[in-house]
Every structure is written in structure tokens, then in C-alpha cells.
């Protein structure tokens, strides 16, 4: 049976189905992508030269030299070194080599690479008229190789890619990546004015001349948790400046959603989320990862969204003529430009999410994870011990798939097959995580004990957490579809009343949106629209019952709302524990790391005592988001310590308000457990302090 046909709707398969069958022939084929009409062709090295000669760099060098008295020559040498470190070396040789090698390698592990063709023709045309920014979601190392590969395959110009400088140090790989179009940006360069100037000019030089599409990841880094992270604006602002300054007529921004049926990094991510140190990117590390080059990794979907014209997007909100009285090299964004850039960034992320084609495995993961027994083990545990029947699972999967489609999710669901067949296929792909017994029962596989550097976390707890988190990664991929639904469900299922007024529901909905704003991507200005939209959808699917201006609670607590609220419950639980941690520790100021690690310890203790059962709350990313969400809600305050270092101030009144509000929606340890608390709290704290 073939789940991976040549063409599915607007998607076309590019790895196995090609008119030219030989990889050599294909990688050496004539490749004539469209080119920007005002591009003056230049070699990669000329970009660096142009950057160094640009007014902004000359000016910055002079300014810095005046400021701190360092010699112009030294600064120029520094600039030259930075440009050298940064520079890409895109050449067709490397692209063709990659095209050949990756074809060989990927053919062994992937069933298919699907690319949607609906916007490609338009995009090819746009590449001639305007500079283009490719903005893919970022959930795997593979993303940028894949993007270049796809561009080559579909006759789009191969992009120049902003990459983190950590790849650079990998011997051989660094230069190979450069040759395939990567240029390297240090992760942190805070106040280094020269570096900042060179970085922005480098990006802008590429945009202005339209040498190639510029690709970067809005989220800044890979989303290990597999859900979109808040946008980092540095690169986008830099790339849009040529538009604001009238140096180009328009820029087209292309959100791209990339999804993998199975991640190469799945366990690595789980470890990283738990704080097991990430191995520094090294060539030998990559070679060790070679064992992944066998096995079945299912499909990849690369979904191009409709290109967004920056000009049309900003038309109403931005007056570009404000830049008319300053020399062009002087970098400045107006308040409106900053706000619009932020808003565009959020929209791009939302478009990426919309474009992403989910794997059926996400459904399976969601189900395995969160059907917890009241007070007892979840299916995750159950399925390790006694397993879940395939038929039972298939039924659940089918139900969740319907919900997903009703609320706008896209899923890879080949037509003409039974749910069970599709389920079995996806279980096979994930045979590292699950096994299917002869009796047709699905079991979760055992994970070896894991040592953490946080002494509060014992190896068994960690092992369970790894198992949970690995599943959570895949479940997280579909959360965006239900994010508004989930929040409404949390309020409804948590209610003690017979009915909730829409007004109250909206207030609580707003509260949750604010609180969870770092874990999920919301457009702040759309809160009312989203609320009304999701209510309409829920009424339509009978997930809630509304009478006049009230939601009737009893009929609204049903399979859908219970499932959804439980899916989002772990987030709130983690936030709640974090509140409790801060409330029980009276400190004048906090470092964010101490809060996170302390909370993680407290969570571990509570998990060990059976007071909590969501092991995924141990995720450091989740806790970091929680801190930032609480900052956003005003329950934690950012301060500057006397020594100038940033520090955090807990605000007990607001924290307890948040905690109470959370406790009104989800099950958390009650007051009866207070005694246990103190006992438990002693554990991490003595370890910590």
C-alpha cells in the first residue's frame, strides 16, 4: 500500500517522484531560477566587500573610534574579521552536491517530501519583481538543508540563510553550510554596535540587491517543544528596513510550515527540555547521529503560505516618508514600524501554523498522553503496562481527527484507507517509542534512567519525564489548532456553577490568554474575534450549549471539552506550581534560573508523591514561558539589581490571585495536602539553598 502518492491535492512529492530518475542527472540538471530584476550579479565575497564599504559601517567605525578612542584601523580590522566570520559562500557546486547526497540519504529514511504547489508559480514570478524573505517554521536542524533542497527542486532561487554561529565551529560542516548559502550570526551580541551594524547591513545588502531570497527563522532558534515560539524581531526588522527607507518597492514575506512525521531529534529535544545539557554542535556528534540515517522517518511536508506583500501589509499603518530627512545609513524605525513589524511577525507565525500539515501521530500522542485516570496513572503508564487496544486507539484517533478538522487543522490523512490502517502505519514509523503486540495492543517502550544535573530530579522521574515529553512534542504540534477552544474548555469544565455568563467566560478567557501568551501565539488585538469564533465553532459542534447569554455547564462538560481542557491542563499546573514556589519562598529578588530550577525540583517532589501526574511540567521551556507569562500579567516584576544585573521580583498578592484562578479551573493539590507541601518543599530547597 502506498500512503505517499506522487500527488495529493496541491501537494507534490519531490523526493521519489521525479521526471529525471537518476540523482546525478537531477542534481546536475539545468537550473535557471528566476532572478530579481534589479539585481546586479555579484560573488558572495563581494557582499562582504560591499558591506565593509557601506556608509553605515564607515560611519559606525568613525563613531566608535570617537567614542572610545580606539583606532579606526583596528576597528576596520575588527569589521573585516566579523564579515569574514559571517559571510556566506553560496555556490551552485555545493547546492548540486547537497542535492545529490541528500537525495541518496533521504530516500533511505523518508517515504516522501511533499511541497504544496499552489503558490509556487506566483512566488516564482514575485522573485523577479521583489526581494523575498522565506520564513519557515523551525523545529529541526534539517529545516534549512530541506528548504534549500526544496527550492532547488521546485526551481526557486536557493536562499541565503541566517544561521546561528554555533554551527560555524563544526569542522568542515561550517564551510559546507556556507557554500550552501548559510551566513552565521552570533547568538548574543547585545550591545556590540559594530557587530549589529555589520549584521543589519549584511542582511540589507542582500535584500536590496536581491542576490537571493533571504531565509531566516522568526523564532530565532529551533522550537524544541514543537510549538511556535514568540518571534524574535531583530532579523525581520533589519530585513524590512530597505522597504521602510524606500530602497525597494516592496518585499514579499513567505511563511512556510515544515512538518516531519518523525523528528530526527525527538529524544534529544526531550532531554534538552529537561535541562540535560545539549551537546555542543560538533562534527563527531553529527557523525554519531548517523545511526539515524537508517529507519523510517515517514513523510515531510513543506507548505508555502500565500506570500505576504509587506507594502500591502504596512500600507495603512506606516508612513515611510518620516525617513526622508535623515541620511539613509542612519538606522531608525518609527514607532509605527516597530509595531507593524511585531504584528507582521505574529501573523507570519500564525500562517506557518495554519500551513503545517500534521501527522496522524500527533493525534496518537495527544491521546496516549492525556487520558489520565482520576488521581491515577495516565494512559501513558497504562500503555506501558497493559497497553491500549489498537481498535480503541483508532476510535479515539478518528474522533480527534474530526475535532481537528472542524477547528481548522490540516492533517496528512491519505484517502481511501481505514483509520486503523493509517494508525498502524504511523505506529510503524514510531516503533522507537511504541510497539504493537501480537494481540494488537499498543505499548509504550521503556526509557533508560536519565541523570539530571538538578539534584532534585531522580533518574526514574527523569525517565518517565523523557517518555512523556517525547509524546508531548508531537502533541504540541497540534495545540495551536485548539488553543482558543482549550481555554474555553478549561473555564467551562472547571466551573462549579450551573451556568456561566458569556461576560465571565470572556473575562476568564482573557485571563488565560494573557497568562499563556508566551506558550501560544495569539494576536492580542484579535482576542474578541477569536473568542466569538471559537464559541461559534463549539456551539456548532455541540461542544458547548448556550442559552441566551449563558453557557449551560452540565451539557457543556462533555467528551470534547473534557479532552481539550485536559490537553491544556499541564500548562496551568506548571504555572500554578511556579506560583506556589514563589509564594513559599520569600526572597527579595530572583534570578530566572533559580525560579525555574526551584520550581522544577518542587514539581519533581510533587510528582514523586503522586500529588501531580503530568511529567511534562518538568520542561524548562514551559517554566521559562511561565515566568515570562507571569511577568506579562504583572505577577512578577522585572527589575535591575544594584549591580545592574536584571533580576525578578515576585509579587505575592498577584501571584496568589493567579494561583487561585488557576486552581478554580484545574485540579491541583488541595489545602489538605498543605502538610505534605511543607515536607516536600523542604526537599528541593535544602538541596538548592
Amino acid at each position, binding site marked *: 500500500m502506498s500512503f505517499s502518492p506522487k500527488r495529493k491535492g496541491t501537494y507534490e512529492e519531490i523526493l521519489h517522484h521525479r521526471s529525471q530518475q537518476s540523482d546525478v542527472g537531477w542534481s546536475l540538471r539545468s537550473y535557471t531560477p528566476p532572478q530579481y530584476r534589479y539585481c546586479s550579479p555579484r560573488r558572495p565575497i563581494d557582499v562582504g566587500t560591499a558591506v565593509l564599504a557601506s556608509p553605515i559601517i564607515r560611519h559606525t567605525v568613525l563613531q566608535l573610534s570617537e567614542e572610545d578612542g580606539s583606532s579606526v584601523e583596528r576597528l576596520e580590522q575588527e569589521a573585516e574579521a566579523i564579515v569574514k566570520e559571517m559571510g556566506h559562500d553560496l555556490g551552485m557546486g555545493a547546492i548540486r552536491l547537497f542535492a545529490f547526497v541528500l537525495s541518496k540519504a533521504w530516500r533511505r529514511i523518508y517515504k516522501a517530501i511533499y511541497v504544496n504547489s499552489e503558490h509556487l508559480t506566483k512566488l516564482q514570478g514575485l522573485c523577479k519583481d521583489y526581494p523575498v524573505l522565506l520564513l519557515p517554521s523551525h523545529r529541526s536542524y534539517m529545516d534549512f538543508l530541506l528548504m534549500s533542497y526544496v527550492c532547488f527542486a521546485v526551481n526557486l532561487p536557493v536562499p541565503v540563510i541566517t544561521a546561528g554561529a554555533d554551527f560555524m565551529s563544526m569542522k568542515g560542516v561550517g564551510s559546507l553550510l556556507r557554500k550552501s548559502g548559510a551566513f552565521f550570526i552570533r547568538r548574543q551580541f547585545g550591545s556590540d554596535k559594530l557587530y549589529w551594524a555589520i549584521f543589519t547591513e549584511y542582511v540589507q545588502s542582500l535584500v536590496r540587491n536581491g542576490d537571493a531570497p533571504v531565509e531566516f527563522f522568526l523564532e530565532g532558534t529551533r522550537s524544541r517543544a514543537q510549538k511556535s515560539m514568540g518571534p524574535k524581531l531583530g532579523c525581520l526588522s533589519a530585513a524590512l528596513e530597505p522597504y521602510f527607507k524606500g*530602497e525597494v518597492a*516592496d518585499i514579499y514575506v513567505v511563511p512556510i510550515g515544515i512538518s516531519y512525521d518523525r523528528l530526527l531529534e525527538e529524544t534529544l529535544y526531550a532531554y534538552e527540555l529537561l535541562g540535560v545539557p545539549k551537546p555542543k554542535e560538533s562534527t563527531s556528534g553529527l557523525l554519531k547521529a548517523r545511526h539515524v540515517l537508517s529507519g523510517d522517518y515517514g513523510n515531510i511536508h513543506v507548505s508555502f503560505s500565500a506570500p505576504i506583500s509587506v507594502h500591502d501589509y504596512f500600507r495603512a499603518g506606516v508612513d515611510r516618508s518620516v525617513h526622508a530627512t535623515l541620511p*539613509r545609513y542612519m538606522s531608525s524605525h518609527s514607532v509605527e514600524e516597530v509595531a507593524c513589524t511585531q504584528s507582521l511577525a505574529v501573523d507570519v507565525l500564525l500562517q506557518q501554523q495554519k500551513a503545517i500539515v500534521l501527522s496522524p501521530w500527533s493525534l496518537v500522542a495527544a491521546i496516549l498522553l492525556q487520558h489520565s485516570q482520576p488521581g491515577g496513572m495516565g494512559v501513558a503508564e497504562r500503555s506501558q503496562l497493559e497497553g491500549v487496544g489498537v481498535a480503541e486507539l483508532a476510535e479515539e484517533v478518528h474522533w480527534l481527527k474530526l475535532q481537528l478538522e472542524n477547528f481548522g487543522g490540516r492533517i496528512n490523512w491519505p484517502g481511501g484507507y481505514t483509520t486503523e490502517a493509517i494508525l498502524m502505519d504511523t505506529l510503524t514509523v514510531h516503533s522507537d517509542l511504541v510497539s504493537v503486540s501480537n494481540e494488537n495492543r499498543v505499548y509504550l517502550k521503556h526509557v533508560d534512567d536519565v541523570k539530571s544535573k538538578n539534584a532534585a530530579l531522580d533518574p526514574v522521574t527523569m525517565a518517565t519525564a523523557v517518555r512523556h515529553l517525547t509524546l508531548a512534542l508531537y502533541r504540541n504540534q497540534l495545540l495551536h489548532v485548539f488553543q482558543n477552544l482549550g481555554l474555553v474548555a478549561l473555564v467551562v469544565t472547571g466551573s462549579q456553577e450551573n451556568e456561566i455568563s458569556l461576560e465571565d467566560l470572556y473575562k476568564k478567557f482573557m485571563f488565560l490568554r494573557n497568562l499563556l501568551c508566551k506558550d501560544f501565539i495569539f494576536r492580542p488585538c484579535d482576542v474578541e474575534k477569536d473568542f466569538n469564533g471559537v464559541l461559534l465553532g463549539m456551539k456548532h459542534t455541540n461542544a458547548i450549549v448556550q442559552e441566551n447569554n449563558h453557557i449551560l455547564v452540565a451539557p457543556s462538560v462533555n467528551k470534547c471539552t473534557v479532552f481539550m481542557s485536559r490537553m491544556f491542563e499541564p500548562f496551568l499546573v506548571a504555572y500554578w506550581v511556579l506560583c506556589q514556589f514563589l509564594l513559599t519562598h520569600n526572597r527579595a529578588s530572583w534570578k530566572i534560573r533559580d525560579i525555574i530550577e526551584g520550581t522544577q525540583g518542587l514539581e519533581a517532589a510533587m510528582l514523586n508523591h503522586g500529588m501531580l501526574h503530568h511529567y511534562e511540567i518538568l520542561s524548562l521551556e514551559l517554566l521559562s514561558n511561565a515566568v515570562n507569562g507571569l511577568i506579562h500579567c504583572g505577577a512578577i516584576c522585572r527589575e535591575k539589581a544594584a549591580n545592574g544585573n536584571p533580576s525578578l521580583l515576585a509579587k505575592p498578592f498577584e501571584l496568589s490571585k493567579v494561583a487561585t484562578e488557576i486552581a478554580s479551573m484545574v485540579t491541583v493539590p488541595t489545602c489538605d495536602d498543605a502538610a505534605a507541601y511543607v515536607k516536600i518543599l523542604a526537599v528541593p530547597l535544602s538541596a538548592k539553598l
Partner: protein
Amino acid sequence: MLNSIEKSRKCHGKVDCHSTSSQSSVTGSLPKRRQDLLKWNGWGYKDTEFILNEKLQVELTGTRYKLSGMVLPLLKDWMLNNFNVNLDYVRPAQPEFSAADLPSPVINKPFLEDLQTSGLEHSLDCHDRLFRAHGHTLNEIWALREGSFNRIPDLVAWPTSQVEVMQMVQLANKHNVVIIPFGGGTSVTQALECPSTETRMIISLDTSQMHKILWLDEENLTACLESGVTGKEIEQRLASRGFCLGHEPDSYEFSTLGGWVATRASGMKKNIYGNIEDLVVLVRTVTTRGLLEKSCNAPRTSSGPDLHHAILGSEGTLGVVTEVVVKIRPLPECQKYGSVVFPCFQDGVSCLREVARQRCAPASIRLVDNEQFVFGQALKPENNSLVQSFLDGIKKAYLTRWKGFDINKMCVATLVFEGTLKEVEAQEKRVYETAGKFGGLPAGEENGERGYFLTYLIAYIRDMGLQYGIIAESFETSIPWDRVTDLCHNVKDRLRRECKAMGMQHEPFASCRVTQLYDAGACVYFYFAFCIRGLSDPVKAYEEIESAARDEILACGGSISHHHGIGKIRKKWLKQSISGVGVDVLQSIKRTLDPQNIFGNGNLFDAAVPISKL
């Protein structure tokens, strides 16, 4: 080399686009009944128009221009290729209006009686009134060809001297009658349009009968001219005494000195002679409060803000410019055209920038983009000699094959050199050398000369276009050097985009040229044309597109206008351009000089004065 200069040496007054033969028949001054000489519903002389002859080739009629009587065999195909037009689809202009088709005059009886007593020459004739109801903005020409007018002047007056203008203004002020000064009528900003809300009687004050040279001072190289004299007339008369003014805007056959002052005009040869503000030594303006003038002909004064600058660019809102003392120059010994081709527009701009940096610009230097270069080629007249076309073939092959020029990217700079033989020779050498650094190759005099013809003929070509459903217009701006290329690219892109957004099937003709060089920037001039088939309201579509293009210009750092002015079509951007305080300053000048809003043409901004009742 010297030989070739000798050959091309031309006496001033015989150069430019006019053939010498016809000039004797035209005195240069405009008659009171202009419609006898000029088209009532289009550009220029009645006897001159582009037509499709019986061989379906474009031909220029008449005898006035160098191309007159010639066939332009390539132009028709250029039109067909660029606009997707069909020669069967014609939009003929409507027949001439009769009195019944025009709004009947608003008459202020006491004023009219006083006017008749005063003996000032005037007319209530409907065609006299109609001729002064418009300039040459697209929508005005459209109204003449296919539409109608809500409001036209109620009376036309022809004062013959400053004294008569003063009388006129006094009468108007006394009876609260509106005066709209009218010079050459070549405005392209709707500046001459009567405000449709105006209920008072409107007088069009035609300055054409004030066309005398009052005096000429050879020692100081100045001359005092009446404001109604046209550019062509000035040059002819000064030339006969061995001088020239050197102010040649594209409209200079018809536009007048007073109009130049009122709009801050710019001339093609400003590199040598300066723009109007540089040429003016003294301006006399009749306002409702009396005569505004300076006390001496000194070359420069420090006496508070220069009041000339309140009048320059006032667009008829403050008074009537009556007499102007201008600087004049001895006629140049030699004038010569030239041209340079560049591989691409950016190279051309870089070259012009370098020329400006070195301040070695000849009298005129203009860079046209590839679209206009191609258009210019389409204006080549029938080649009578095979040798000529053979040479053209060689030139093209040389450029494209040997020099690697892309015919779809190359562009041309056209040049006018003026001065003594030696000066011209030196200028040529320097300019061609500089051009060489940017990949430019000299491309001969003929290409240069043709570039300048285009300027004078473009408005005639527009009239032919309208006949076949092609709308065309031009607009301009000025901008710092570093933004010139981006501006050109962005505005052209915006034009194409807006047309697409309006559902036009065919790309418009969007083209530009850099026409003036300054130390700090340049003037850029756009031509824009599209086929209107299928559009329900083509003029509105055009206006929306031009408005979007102006937004783009401002966004790119360009100005609201370099020399066309504000008129009525650009009022909405004035505050953004000169700040609210700036508008207040202009308002207070207006209030002081014209409290009753007698000069109520409504240009620049809406005058914040109470509109009194009739």
C-alpha cells in the same frame, strides 16, 4: 574634432525643435482669441497634430516643427505593442461646445458697469471663457474631449499694462469679484480650474497683451519684461539684440514669464542660466493691497526674508505678477547636442551623480530610462537614405554584440552643450570621459536631438493617444542623489501595480527620466500611460494611480513637486510637505495680501478666509 563642431555650430534662435521657416510667420505673441491659433481641446497649434495617414502610418502635420510633414513609421507599432490598443477602437473628441453647452456667466452687475466705464478690454464670449477654464491637466483635456465643465470664468479681461491690472484688481476688490490670472494656460496641476463652489463672479485675467520688453540694460545684463510674454517670444526678441534669457521649460512655446514666477518654473538649461528664482532680479506684483515690489535692481539684498519667494510659487493666489526684471546673457557662440548610452539605468544615474559632483554639467543633461529610450527610437522619422539605416544597423550591432549592451536594459543620456567653441569642446571631453567610467559610450548628436524633440512633441502625442483610448500624463519630483534610482524603480513598480489592482489586463507604459542635476539631488520626471479600454471611469482611475505614485514618491524621500507646483491636485500633501506651521505662515501671508480672497483660484490650500456673499 573642431571641424565637427564647426559643422554643428548653430546660431541661437534657430535651434531647438522649430524649423526656421515657420518662425517668420509667427510674431510669437498670443492673440486674444487664442482658439484661432491654438487647439481648443488639445495641446498646441491647430495646424499640428499626429495623425494616422492613409498608409496607416503616423505622420505629423503642419510645418512648425522639424518633424512636421514627416512619417514616423515605427510609432504605430510601438503603440500597438505597448498598449494593447486596437486601431478600430477610437474615442473621437466631442464637437466644439456651443454657448448652450456651457455654464452661463455669473454677472456682478455693478462690477460689469464699472468695468465698462473703465474701458478695460474684456469679453463675455463663451469660447473665450472656455479657453481660460482649464490648463492641460489630463482631466481637463478629458473634460474638453468627452465631458463638460461645471464652472468656467464668467468674463475674460485683457489688461495691457501694470496700470490696467491695478485698475482691474481695484474694481474686483471693490465688488468682491474673483480674479484668476491666466498666462500661457499650460498648467498641469488644475491651477486654472475655477473652484466649483465659487458663487462670486470669476474674471480670468489674461496677461497675454502685456508682452513688451520695457527695457534692456546691456551693461548690467538685465531686462525688464512684462509678465505675459511667452518664452519663445522672449528668446526671439532678445536674440535679435544678441542676448538670451536661457529659460526653457518644456512648455516654453506657450508659457509666460508671469506663469514661471507663479509656479517656480524650471528650465531645461538651468545648469547655465539657473531656474526662475535665480533669473529674477525684481518682481512687481499687483495685490489687492497695492503693488508689492523692491526698491532697486541690486543683485542680492539682506532685508529680512526675501519677499520674492512669497510670490515665487504663489500660483496666482496672492496677486498678478505684472513686470519682472530678469538677468540676460549674451547669446552663446555655439550650441551642440550629444548623447551617451549606458548599459543600464543605474550606471547612468551614477554617471550623472558624478557629473554633478564635479559640477561639470553642460547646459542640459538628461537621462532617460530604457522604456523612454525605446520610445525615442520609435520616433525616428522615415529614413530617406539607405546608408543611414545601414549605419543604424551597425551601431546597434556594435553596442549589443561587441559592447555587451542589453537592448532591454540600456538607456541614454541626452546632452546640450552651450558656450564658446572652446568651452563646448572642453565640456564634451569632460562629460564623455566621465561617462566612460560608468560604461557610457557616446551615441551621437542625432539621438540627443531626438530626445529634446520628444519633449516638445509629447503633448501632441498624448492627444493622438487619447484618440485611441490611451491616457497619458506626466508628473515630476526632486530627490537626493542616493535615492534617485530607488525612486525610479519604486514609482514605476507602483504604477504597474496599481494598474494591475484596477484590473487592467495590459501593463502600463511607466517611464522616467532624470532631467535636472543639482549638488544635492536631481529632478525626476515620469511619463505614465495606459489603455483605458474596459475602465468605467478612466480619469478617476488615473487620478487614483497618480495619487498612489505620489505617496510612493514621498515615501522614497522625494518632494511634492520640483516645478509643476501644487495647484489643486497636490493640495492634500502640502501640510505633510511643509508642516502645519508652514501652512499657517502661507495662510497669514494670504490673509494680509488678500483678505477677501479675490485671488480665489483655490490653489495650494483652502484659504481660511470667510467666503463673503455675492
